[in-house]
């Protein structure tokens, strides 16, 4: 059930998976960026969990949880991932202002997140960014929901598509973000933002399973 408890579980699982993959994300970012993605995201989600733990009242809506994630990531992450994920969660929080999401609600939440990233990063597909993982994820979510899938199935489809989208960034040449300064040398590397997107969406799916 994709309710407030699910959202909280998603966030905690996200923090855990980011901590587990911290070194990997740092290494991916070191290859084509400034090497701070793993450290920054880990710092951000650690802070998010601390805020969740400190809450005196349980959040009323899924959006309340996501907004807490948004504002905390924005003020603690530091690198580009802060405002990008921060805006994603912020827009998502507005789309998820109910105690529970049905399949259409999950789709709307993911769509809002992608729109936030695109609005903030001004990136499109094929530029070797997290948009290359988010876009197929949203497309798969829409398709699964249209086919009558449950919220858990919609999230699973989104996560799997994000994995494929992330892998598809490897042969791309970066034309947005810090990696774009590398030009052709960015080819052959997995984009760290696409990889972290994949991790976060799998956390969402596992929390709903």
């Amino acid at each position, binding site marked *: 059930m994709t309710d407030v408890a699910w959202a909280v579980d998603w966030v905690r699982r996200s923090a855990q998976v980011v901590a587990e993959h911290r070194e990997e994300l740092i290494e991916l970012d070191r290859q084509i960026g*400034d090497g*701070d993605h793993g450290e*920054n995201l880990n710092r951000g989600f650690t802070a998010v969990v601390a805020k969740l733990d400190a809450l005196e009242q349980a959040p009323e809506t899924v959006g309340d949880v996501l907004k807490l994630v948004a*504002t905390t990531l*924005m*003020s*603690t992450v*530091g*690198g*580009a991932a*802060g*405002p*990008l994920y*921060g*805006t994603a969660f*912020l827009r998502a929080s507005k789309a998820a202002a109910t105690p529970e999401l049905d399949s259409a609600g999950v789709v709307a939440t993911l769509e809002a997140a992608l729109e936030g990233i695109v609005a*903030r*990063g001004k990136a499109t597909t094929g530029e070797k960014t997290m948009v290359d993982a988010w876009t197929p994820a949203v497309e798969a979510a829409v398709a699964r929901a249209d086919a009558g899938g449950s919220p858990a199935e919609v999230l699973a489809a989104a996560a799997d598509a994000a994995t494929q989208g992330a892998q598809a960034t490897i042969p791309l040449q970066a034309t947005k*973000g*810090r990696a774009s300064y590398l030009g052709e040398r960015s080819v052959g590397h997995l984009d760290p933002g696409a990889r972290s997107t994949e991790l976060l969406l799998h956390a969402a799916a596992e929390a709903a399973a």
Partner: protein
Amino acid sequence: MSVALILVSHVRELAEGAVRLAAQMAPGVTILAAGGLEDGAIGTSFDTVEAAIGRATADEGAAVVLTDLGSAVLTTESVLELADEQVAARVRIADAPFVEGAVAAAVAAHGGAGLEGVLAAAEAAGGLFAEAGVEPASHHADAAHAAGADSATPAAGVAEQTADDGVVRATRTLLNPQGLHARPAATVARTMAGYDAHVRVNGSNAASVLELMKLAAPQGAELRIEAEGPQAQEAVDALTAAIDEGFGEL
């Protein structure tokens, strides 16, 4: 109250250094540094940028933000997205080179330009500096001369020198109430780029907006123009006409 500037950099020292440089040319203008993370590490801090925007926009103030790399822009935009709409409406993010844009914006703010004027000054800085970079090679020699000692050219500094040394000279009085601030300086540099001539104003390279602004020429200042090259006369004619018209500001 003049428009304030906020310089957002990934590195605290970079932001603070740029503030020092810009403030030198614009005393009295509020210029705030918002560089690095709270612990001094490299990055841009939402809270630091938010605090700077809060300070700059207090008492109905307006501010232009200059940024270094991408995520500085993203952080600033995020702050504005979450900020009060009326505050956000008084803030602009300049698409401008960090240092040159900050200097140009500071001078414009000092000269009393409004929010859009300061923004335009910052954003014009990039193109103008790029133009200066593609001048004919001979301009560089001229710039070196302007930056170096006048003694490199025997003619320089001798007002009575006749025109048969190949130098076209003219003297004009600056009419603009706010002096030779960023916008007219930009106009001069842009105009001079169109002529095959090396032009100096009070010894400074007229193709460089930064050198012109450094003159800090106030209203009523005497501008001594010297030009050399195939189109020296045309360049001087165009420049004197622009000065007499107050660069369209009068």
